[in-house]
């Protein structure tokens, strides 16, 4: 006898399923991408939003977070675009592409002026023209059903397709700025596809932000396909408004001898989740995935990642630092998979949390799944308060408690920021961290 555990559909699920059906009917897509979209829609119709019995969502109750589905954002107005342009987090020296309320900001994005070797087209245009790059989209979906990514795929329309030509050394970082400006709780779905050809080098910045006090829902998925010998840096800033739900997905496929460095600074949203799925498809590659989560109030911040060592001789390093004030709740779930052929794998994962609030809570769940016998893998997880002896040393030198604490917290997260290679970016990130920590102690 089998027992059906499925819960009745929530109002949120009903509304999302309807929105998906409406989009499928209104904007049919042919070919492989169309099939992909229909499959995702069918999967969502079947599985819906995860309950906490689904292991990957054990610590983040998505059904509760999406009690009601927000209506979809409409077309971008010129005034919203102008406002978004002014509000967008600045990364001096980067070339910016703007998304406003989940839609491409036509007037503010100089796609024709991108550095040599880089071309970008809005996803809607790529879908209309049947761009061959779209053959890559969804090629590396996580093997298990993931509600956030399924919804993103089912709603596929807005986003950006970036191509970096073989051998191109792109000095100017490309900044994809997602700015929410509406004062109504709307839902946005954006998809970014980045295809980096052999031997190329590029830095991509992705930022997500919005106003305080608006319960909007942002679902943003990015896919990176990185060719042999390429070097890709990714900086992701999640600074959504404090009422938002942010569902981020990052899927990365690495060829041979790739260097991939990713860093996420997450400070925003009422509930935020980043699902990261990295896969080594070619030997001799290195991935460094780091992040800083700064949580206050009743914020909930979840980073869930899988590094899949499918081939031998690859190295991965993961380091996540979470600072929790007040009653915030942090989650880190990290899994390293070493497949039977992936000998000489070297993988190390660490999650460290600093609990500053008496009622703050951190859930750390590191996992190793190793099927090869000649590997080096390790993981660690810590959670604790600030060291009293460290604090006293600073106080004894005349540094007041709030400043002493801020200095120690900066030092704590600085260990992760340090890995961002570009000095400008590192400083911009550190400045955002200091500004954020400067608030209520």
């Amino acid at each position, binding site marked *: 006898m089998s027992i059906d555990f499925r819960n009745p559909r929530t109002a949120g699920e009903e509304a999302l399923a309807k929105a998906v059906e409406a989009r499928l009917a209104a904007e049919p897509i042919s070919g492989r991408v169309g099939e992909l979209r229909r499959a995702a829609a069918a999967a969502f119709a079947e599985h819906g939003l995860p309950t906490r019995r689904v292991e990957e969502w054990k610590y983040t109750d998505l059904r509760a977070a999406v009690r009601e589905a927000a209506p979809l954002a409409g077309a971008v107005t010129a005034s919203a675009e102008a406002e978004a342009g002014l509000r967008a987090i600045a990364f001096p020296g980067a070339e910016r592409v703007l998304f406003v309320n989940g839609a491409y900001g036509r007037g503010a994005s100089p796609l024709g002026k991108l550095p040599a070797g880089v071309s970008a087209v809005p996803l809607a245009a790529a879908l209309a023209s049947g761009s061959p790059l779209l053959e890559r989209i969804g090629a590396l979906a996580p093997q298990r059903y993931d509600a956030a990514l399924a919804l993103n795929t089912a709603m596929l329309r807005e986003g950006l397709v970036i191509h970096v030509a073989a051998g191109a050394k792109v000095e100017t970082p490309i900044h994809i700025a997602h700015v929410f400006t509406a004062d109504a709780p709307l839902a946005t779905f954006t998809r970014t596809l980045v295809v980096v050809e052999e031997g190329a080098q590029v830095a991509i910045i992705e930022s997500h932000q919005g106003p305080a006090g608006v319960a909007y829902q942002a679902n943003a998925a990015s896919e990176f396909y990185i060719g042999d010998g390429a070097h890709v840096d990714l900086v992701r800033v999640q600074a959504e408004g404090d009422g938002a739900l942010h569902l981020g997905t990052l899927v990365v496929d690495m060829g041979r001898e790739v260097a991939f460095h990713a860093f996420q600074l997450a400070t925003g949203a009422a509930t935020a989740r980043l699902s990261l799925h990295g896969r080594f498809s070619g030997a001799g590659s290195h991935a460094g995935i780091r992040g800083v989560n700064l949580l206050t109030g009743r914020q909930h911040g979840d980073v869930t990642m899988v590094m899949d060592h499918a081939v031998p001789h690859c190295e991965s390093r993961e380091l996540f630092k979470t600072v929790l004030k007040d009653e915030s709740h942090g989650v880190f779930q990290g899994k390293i998979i070493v497949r039977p052929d992936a000998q000489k794998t070297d993988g190390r994962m660490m999650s460290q949390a600093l609990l500053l609030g008496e009622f703050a809570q951190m859930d750390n769940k590191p996992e190793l799944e190793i099927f090869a016998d000649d590997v080096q893998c390790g993981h660690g997880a810590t959670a604790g308060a600030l060291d009293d002896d460290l604090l006293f040393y600073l106080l004894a030198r005349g540094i007041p*408690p709030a400043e002493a604490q801020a200095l120690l917290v900066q030092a704590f997260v600085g260990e992760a920021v340090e890995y961002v290679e570009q000095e400008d970016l590192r400083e911009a990130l550190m400045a955002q961290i200091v500004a954020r920590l400067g608030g209520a102690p």
Partner: protein
Amino acid sequence: MLDIRNLHASIDDREILKGLDLTLNAGEVHAIMGPNGSGKSTLSYVLAGKDDYEVTAGTATLDGADLLAMAPDARAAAGLFLAFQYPIEIPGVANMTFLRTALNAQRKARGEAEISTPDFLRLVKAKASDLGISQEMLRRGVNVGFSGGEKKRNEILQMSVLEPKLCILDETDSGLDIDALKIVAQGVNALRSPHRAMLVITHYQRLLDHIVPDVVHVMHQGRIVRSGGKELALELEASGYAAYGDAA
């Protein structure tokens, strides 16, 4: 300058200081010697304001101000400096940033203007070079990767940049070889001034060959049991602390 009367302090309900009296005048250097466990380090922590200790009776004033009523950072701004026996490592906070933050915090607390960057750099550079502290060490995290001797020199550097009224040196000689000891002692002696008082806490007489005290106190079971001139240190070196009921 420093006036301690009938000071009692406990940790975890165990009384360590049991009615300690001590007076230091400006310009004086006093040494406190005593066997392990006599309460020397406790005295330094209680004066600096570590909250593990509870003061149950007595007073301690610095130039008439009630030290025990002040938070640790306020005590530092008022001119008290403790050179730690075991200086701690602070990864991620550069030595320079630390020194500058501390100096400016103290100046701000005293109502003085912040020091300018060029003035600060000049000040630190000169003092660091006297103590054999390299630019590279200044850029590193506080005490990170420093040897025992380098950590102690770094304490003296902080002391000379912050220019306190009252310096408390807690077992500054521990873990130092003779060359390192000389450098540290030179740094301390350079800070001797008619406007400053120093309290040198040590187990051994060796340090007092290099930092010659005006007064030597013997501490035992949480009190000062004997005081004398610098020759008292030599006597203790010869006879040990056995006369005070301790074989150390």
